[in-house]
């Protein structure tokens, strides 16, 4: 009896030891994930494994489509898409080598460049549709709100998904163009899914949302006050795909292959809206009705340099940085 107990105890001790070892190993593996992820180039076959950090929103539909359509495989890339919370979380992931490529909004990329993070844009990400009243992002308010125009946002409490990114910069610009003073707006940071309940509860007066939350809001009776992206620039480049300068120098062929497959994906998505609506269901929890209703952004393989320049100036106006970063080092 006693011996049995000790044996069980010993075995349990061994299991625990094995578990601890496994945990330590996996932790170490995660810690140096950057090194194994980029491996695989030139080993036997011609496929290179790359990991791309994305946000699970409508904007990144083209890359999901491109993987599905085999555009990346044709270029010899084996793409793994990893979702992260937001562009600001993806940037460190790319710099540390955890991801080889990432997707982030233009303002966050400019901010990172101004802080000296070595980044290089490799492809356009998503752009404003340029159509007033039919863009994929807007500031929404309750139906009975006394906020009628962008200028009415003055002195109000507005929810955004991240303080000091493209959504605050463009909302500020829309208010400024409408004759209001954006410095009086009190921005509050809330995740996209929490913004609509917060507006409904009256916790905030308005909220800046992108699709599909814009359609969710308007279909529940809310009203769009201003489409901040179009108001800032009809050709606004809202987000882009990027890599680290180090990776661009070390593996230029991989970057070239990625850029070419990404551009093909962007053009394909723009020409096949039905395919886009279908692929949405594979990586979001959107139901079929919403998939049909959401306003699709514009996807293009051309980066609108003027709009990036404009955003960089607006970032200075908003005090995000005092001196404009060198856009030429950021853009390809």
């Amino acid at each position, binding site marked *: 009896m006693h011996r049995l107990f000790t044996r069980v105890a010993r075995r349990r001790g061994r299991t625990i030891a094995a578990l601890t070892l496994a945990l330590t190993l996996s932790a170490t593996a995660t810690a140096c994930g950057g090194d194994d992820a980029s491996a695989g180039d030139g080993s036997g076959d011609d496929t290179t494994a790359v990991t791309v950090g994305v946000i699970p929103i409508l904007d990144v539909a083209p890359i999901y489509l491109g993987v599905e359509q085999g555009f990346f495989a044709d270029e010899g890339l084996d793409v793994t898409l990893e979702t992260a919370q937001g562009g*600001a979380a993806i*940037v*460190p992931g790319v*710099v*540390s080598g955890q991801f080889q490529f990432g997707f982030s909004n233009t303002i*966050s990329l400019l*901010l*990172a460049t101004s*802080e*000296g*993070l070595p980044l290089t844009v490799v492809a356009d990400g998503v752009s404003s549709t340029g159509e007033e009243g039919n863009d994929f992002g807007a500031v929404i308010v309750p139906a009975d709100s006394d906020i009628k125009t962008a200028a009415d946002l003055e002195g109000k*409490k507005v*929810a955004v998904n*991240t*303080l*000091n*990114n493209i959504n605050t910069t463009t909302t500020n610009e829309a208010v400024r163009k409408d004759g209001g003073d954006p410095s009086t707006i*009190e*921005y*509050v*940071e*809330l995740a996209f899914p*929490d913004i609509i*309940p*917060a507006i409904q*509860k009256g*916790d*905030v007066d308005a909220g800046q949302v992108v699709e599909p939350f814009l359609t969710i809001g308007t279909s529940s009776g809310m009203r769009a006050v201003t489409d901040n992206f179009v108001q800032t620039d009809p050709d606004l480049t809202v987000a882009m795909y990027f890599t680290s300068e180090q990776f661009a120098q070390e593996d230029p062929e991989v970057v070239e292959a990625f850029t070419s497959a990404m551009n093909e994906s962007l053009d394909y998505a723009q020409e096949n809206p039905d395919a886009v609506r279908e692929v949405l269901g594979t990586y979001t929890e959107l139901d079929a009705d919403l998939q049909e209703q959401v306003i699709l952004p514009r996807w293009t393989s051309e980066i609108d340099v003027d709009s990036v320049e404009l955003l960089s100036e607006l970032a200075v106006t908003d005090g*995000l940085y005092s001196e404009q970063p060198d856009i030429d080092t950021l853009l390809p």
Partner: protein
Amino acid sequence: MTTVATWGRQLFWLLALPLVLLTLWWVASADSTSIFWPPLSTILEAFPQTWDADRIVNDALPSLARLGIGYALALVAGVAGGILVGLSRTVRALCEPSMEFFRAIPPPVLVPVIALFAGYTGSTSKIVTIALGCLWPILLNTVEGVRGLDEVQLDTARVYRFRSRTRLLQVVLRGASPQIAAGARQALSIGVILMVISELFGANRGLGASIVQFQRAFAVPEMWTGIILLGLIGVALAGLFRLVEHRALAWYRGVRRADRGA
């Protein structure tokens, strides 16, 4: 003369490890070119600029005020509830399973739910989060403390016909105070954690919110100064707590010393 020597020795033991750690950090990070791991000298340079008067008043103090109010609420509710539960066997039998249930739920999970009731923005939801998190260690420790009271003492107080107020304050509360203090100390560190976590949700100002903002804006040295400031606040609060406990529990140390001597 001897007191000066003792003080000096105490100060040495107090500062020795922090100084060693700081030196190690300084040396290890001195030549760092990594953006996310800047040299300590850069971080320390950024400290006074980052935490200027404006930021202290608008970010650090409101956070500390929310912590103070939430913690005080938890202390009052926890001690009062704990005495109630601890004194009555019936109430205890009734409440214990539910208390264990609520204690097992980590308060960060509740943040979005609390926001639904107490509002996404503003201080209320943050104070409620802090208070809810701090409540359980204080409550459960108070229950244990009250339950562990010497029956003879309670009976004696009753026989001597102490007024119920005196009995409650001098016998029950005082007798349970070592345990209450232990719970309160646990709750303090939970409170600091929740002060930060509650600000990650629906915040635009505050200590935790600032640190995240620095991170989002890739202002890495500034982010590190925020983390250092949080640590310093933790040390200060722990020191303050020890001071209060030292005075409040002076009688207890006396009893312990007497016990050991006997």
